[in-house]
């Protein structure tokens, strides 16, 4: 989940650290906030052009490494009320629980297989996880213009301690404001997934993409996430990010 | 006693064999007849037909007033067992039964009471001169003795007709004489009609009537 936030919240720059790792570090620093809230609309465009829409409300407390988040579906009717609670940890995989109102039960979701798709979208669970700077090795692979903006092209490889579905990924970070503009994930040289960060806007001083477009090249389908009613540093209580709260608010 | 009208007997095989060819014959009560002829001339077939062991292909047979045509097996058997006694060349005694039992066999088959059977069987064995050998098995007897037992069995109910197929054929000439003498003696004493199939000219000569067959036909019928 937090990974998503990380990408969403990349913001404008300080100085020009030329070394790849420090670029990524800087990008992460600039997106650090106390909390966040938004309403997301997800459109999954299948290979045959069929569109499925889901909506959710998202709240997050804390940032990178130790954040907690709740995602509650509001549409379509068959999933309305289903909620997801995520506890991120700096040192290990996140804990996730899901609440299903029809059963009045929560269940733990073990994120065991990182390549599993996130609830029918083109995101994988891994794509949505927080990607900590320290878990990868970086190499600057040049500069390219993406969506009209000059960006660093950085190659990231997971460290041995980190299990990833991608053997290699490419990240494009805008030189002018350190915002992520694109990410590509590869497995054994083959492009699996591309994420594009579009409609960048400065929200409460943070450069934020209002539209994310993910293309899954293995399935040839596309997911678009629109972010509305975005707020940073809203007042949220830690009690809202517990299982009890999850059950209560059904 | 025995009437045959145009009796034929064919055997169907790969090649049809005509064993008897339209034979007509009449034998009166009390006659003693020898049937002679070379092998394959139809002697035995004739005897089997008269004895009801076989059925003619065509023609009519009447035994002691009973027509054999068109009756079922069991009726045929009943006629056979009441009117006919058989004497075979190979005796056809049952090896596991004693002399007495062999002789008693037809009587048992008729369902006689045991006591009466026992008495009759003894009487018959004494008649053929084997009164002392009642409990012997056939294999313990000489050929002549066996044939005597067979004759005793054939006489069990004192049938009006006695049929003998080469009765001496399996015996040495001396014993053969004895058996023939016995048959003649019985013929005289019991007054039965006797038919003997033989190729022994001596036996044939000793019979009052001699019928010669060749290729299924009667070629000679001579009373002597």
């Amino acid at each position, binding site marked *: 989940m937090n990974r998503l936030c990380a990408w969403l919240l990349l913001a404008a720059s300080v100085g020009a650290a030329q070394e790849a790792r420090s670029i990524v570090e800087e990008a992460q620093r600039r997106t650090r906030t106390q909390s966040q809230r938004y309403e997301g609309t997800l459109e*999954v465009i*299948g290979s045959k052009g*069929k569109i*499925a829409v889901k909506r959710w409300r998202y709240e997050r407390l804390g940032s990178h490494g130790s954040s907690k988040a709740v995602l509650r*579906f509001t549409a*379509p009717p*068959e*999933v*309305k*009320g*289903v909620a997801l609670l995520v506890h991120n940890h700096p040192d290990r995989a996140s804990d996730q629980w*899901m609440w*299903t*109102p*029809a*059963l009045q*039960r929560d*269940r*733990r*979701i*073990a994120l*065991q*297989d990182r390549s*599993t*798709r996130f*609830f*029918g979208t083109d995101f994988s669970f891994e794509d949505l996880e927080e990607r900590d700077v320290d878990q990868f090795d970086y190499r600057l692979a040049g500069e390219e213009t993406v969506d009209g903006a000059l960006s660093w092209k950085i190659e990231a490889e997971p460290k041995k301690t980190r299990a990833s579905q991608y053997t290699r990924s490419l990240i494009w970070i805008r030189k002018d404001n350190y915002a992520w503009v694109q990410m590509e994930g590869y497995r054994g040289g083959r492009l699996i997934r591309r994420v594009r960060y579009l409609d960048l806007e400065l929200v409460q001083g943070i450069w934020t993409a209002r539209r994310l477009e993910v293309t899954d090249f293995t399935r040839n389908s596309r997911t678009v996430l629109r972010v509305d009613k975005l707020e940073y540093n809203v007042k949220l209580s830690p009690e809202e990010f517990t299982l009890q709260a999850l059950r209560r608010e059904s | 006693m025995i009437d045959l009208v145009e009796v034929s007997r064919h055997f169907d095989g790969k090649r049809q064999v005509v064993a008897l060819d339209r034979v007509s014959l009449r034998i009166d009560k009390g006659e003693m007849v020898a049937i002679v002829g070379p092998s394959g001339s139809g002697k035995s077939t004739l005897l*089997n037909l008269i*004895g009801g*062991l*076989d059925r003619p292909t065509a023609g009519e047979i009447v035994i002691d007033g009973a027509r054999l045509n068109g009756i079922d*097996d*069991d009726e045929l*058997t*009943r006629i*056979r*067992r*009441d009117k006919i006694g*058989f004497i*075979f060349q*190979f005796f*056809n*005694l*049952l090896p*596991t*039964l004693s002399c007495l*039992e062999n002789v*008693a*066999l*037809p009587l*048992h*088959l*008729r369902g006689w009471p*045991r006591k009466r*059977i026992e008495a009759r069987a003894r009487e018959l064995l004494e008649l053929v001169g084997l009164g002392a050998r009642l409990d012997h098995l056939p294999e313990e007897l000489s050929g002549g003795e066996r044939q005597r037992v067979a004759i005793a*069995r*054939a006489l*069990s109910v004192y049938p009006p007709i006695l049929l003998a197929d080469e009765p001496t054929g399996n015996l040495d000439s001396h014993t053969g004489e004895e058996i023939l003498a016995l048959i003649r003696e019985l013929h005289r004493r019991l007054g039965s009609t006797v038919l003997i199939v033989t190729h022994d000219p001596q036996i044939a000569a000793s019979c009052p009537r001699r019928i010669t067959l060749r290729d299924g036909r009667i070629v000679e019928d001579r009373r002597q």
Partner: protein
Amino acid sequence: MRLARLIGWPYARKHVLRTCLTVAGIALGVAVFVAMHAANRAVLGGFERTVDRIAGAAQLQVTAGGFGFPEEVLERVQAVPEVRVAVPVIEAVVDTGLAGQGSLLILGVDMTGDRSLRQYDLESGEEAIIDDPLVFLAQPDSLIVTREFAERNRLEVGHRIPLMTMEGPKQFVVRGIMRPGGFGKAFGGNLAVMDIYAAQKMLGRGRRFDRIDVAVREGVPVERCQAALRAALGPGFEVEPPEARGAHFESMLRGYTFTVNISSLFALFIGMFIIYNSFQIAVTERRVEIGILRALGATQGQIRGLFLVESALLGATGAGLGVILGGAMAQLSAAYIGGLLEDVYGVAQHVEGAELGAPLIASSAALGVLASVLAAWIPSRAAARVDPVQALQKGKYQVLSVGENRARRRAAAASLAAALICLAAGRSAEAFYAGYLLAVLTAILLAPTLSLWLSKLLRPLLRWLRPVEGTLAADSLIHAPRRTSATVAALMLSLAMVIGFAGMAGAIYDSVTQWMDQVLNPDLFVNASGSISRRNFTFPASLAHEIERMEGVDQVQAVRHARVIFGGVPVSVVAADVEKLASKVRRIVIQGDLDEMYRLTAQGRGVIVSDNFADLRGVRLGDTIALPSPSGLVRLPVVGITRDYTDQQGSVLVDRSVYRRWWQEDSADVLRIYLKPGYSPERVRQRILEQFAARQRLFVLDNAEVRREILRLTDQWFGMTYNQIAVAVLVAVLGIVNTLTVSITDRRRELGVLQSVGGLRQQVRHTVWMEAVGIGLIGLVLGLALGAVNLYYTVEMVHRVAGLRIDYQYPWGVAALLVPGMLLVALASALWPAEKAVRGRLVEALEYE
């Protein structure tokens, strides 16, 4: 070979019927063998395929017996670093409630993780559900079914299926239809996938899982992961590859397979006698031919070869037919065994048609040929030893040489002595089975001598009945021992088998009845699953209290049954309120003091085990046994051994307090209800149904119904063996027909004489019939006698294999039925040969030399 074609073929053609009978003997034997094996394999294979398909990519499965385990275990499993994916599963077979659909395998899974193990290959469904497990999860009434099931029930996506859940009837909605093949073919396609929490609710499982399916992290050997999981979970859990379930299933079936194999071997063995008989006859009949061949320069080896090749050809023909027949029988048997397993053991499996497979075909063909050659061995040796000079002289040849008989008697004496030594030698399985074989061998060796003696004894009797026909029939038996004795031996064996089996079955029925009388005394049984052997659904213990408060109810005992793996074999653990039990049930004690064992068990200081558990697991009074539970091994001493037929692999009674503590659960699958005096079970049953049926899945059975059900299951268990025995008897009867057809040929002249001196056809028939009856009678006498011995070994074998101690009770009733029955059958088998005898041409018979 050429000799066989030249000499053997015309002979076989001349004796078409006998050849056919011989072939039929082997064919039936092989057929039973093939059918049993194919059916067994189909059942086992069906189970394994289902396990395999359901397991998907799972490499290991974590289980804790039939009780399942709390949900928390999943996290412990997922925390093991060697584990890549671990997903929970609930698996249960339930009645669909749809007419003609039988059972449905319900698979409860957690869709969020499950797709990494199982391919849900959906061909239709709401678009969303194919992609989004969320939709499936959010709607707990979702069901994915296979196309096969959907087609059979004319279901489409969006259709509703009513299913009876523990919370009353619920509508489920078909949200996806799986493509056939792979996973969708498991359990013959009668498969429905639902959310695991929905399944928990439906089956009354509480917050428990049945199983966790595990995929190992890449690059980690499965064994290492297995060891790591075992270390993490402790000894109360089984961590095994999916295939291990097949092995457990197999071990559960062991007793059944064993019985069935023994009787199929018997059938083959009896078939061998027919071959032996036919060849023995052929050798005597073809003496002259053999003599001529020998005179023309054939060696002994060639003569033996001739007969052996003939027997091999007959064997091969028989085996071929047997395989075909067996294949057909296997289909029926497999369905039968499948039903049996489901009913008796309550185990989910789905037979998908019995396929024979090349190895089975090859081995049964080999078996048929081998049996045939073996059976022809002695006759061909006899043929090789024919003296050409003697053979060409006509004479008697039927009588067994004195020497031959003496040699047999000596061998019999030696074999009897050896059998007795084995009997005395003690308890080892080898000695026991060797003794069994030797005892049977003794009987076979003595059969000719005994049958001769009996024929001689029979002669006066038959003679008295019918002076001519009877005497001749008896003489025919006496003077043709070769013709008679093998058939008598075959008959003896098959009847001994009947007696052994009937005695065993009778004793088992008796003790089951006695057990039911003493132990099964509640007035009503409330059952969650609808069948007394299925334990898929469970009640919360609170239901027992509610019912106990009802008017007229004196006591309710909540009982939970489930299997756990003990010593590699599934055994039943029965959790009951022992104090209550003690007040109502006087168990049949094998060892220990009943009150004392009740007291200790009720206090949670011991367990009471069934007698078969004690015997099969080698457990004695006072031993401490360790039962696996999710909280670790439950170590308790055996404080009593009682008779109990709950489970064929044995059962262990523990108090519910122990169950709650160690299994962390308080459910029941059966409530045993005792009524106060004066209340009618029928009324109380009605009231229970009125009060609970709407909100609770339950079935109420009265005492008589449960008893009937148990007896029905017992019947079913024996059913297959009944059929096999019927085949064995049929084979033996073929032997009678065979012997008689030979007999009427041998006796052709005799029968001709009989007719020529005035025997009516009926009288000829009588003598043939009487010979048949004579064979039947001798076979009966020997068979009933050998049956006494066989029963002894059967009783002992039941004790060894099934752990059941049953009394030795000679089944006089069955024996009394067998006498007229067998004689009638013998008579019936003589009808056709007798007709053939009277239809022969008289003149030929008389001239026959």
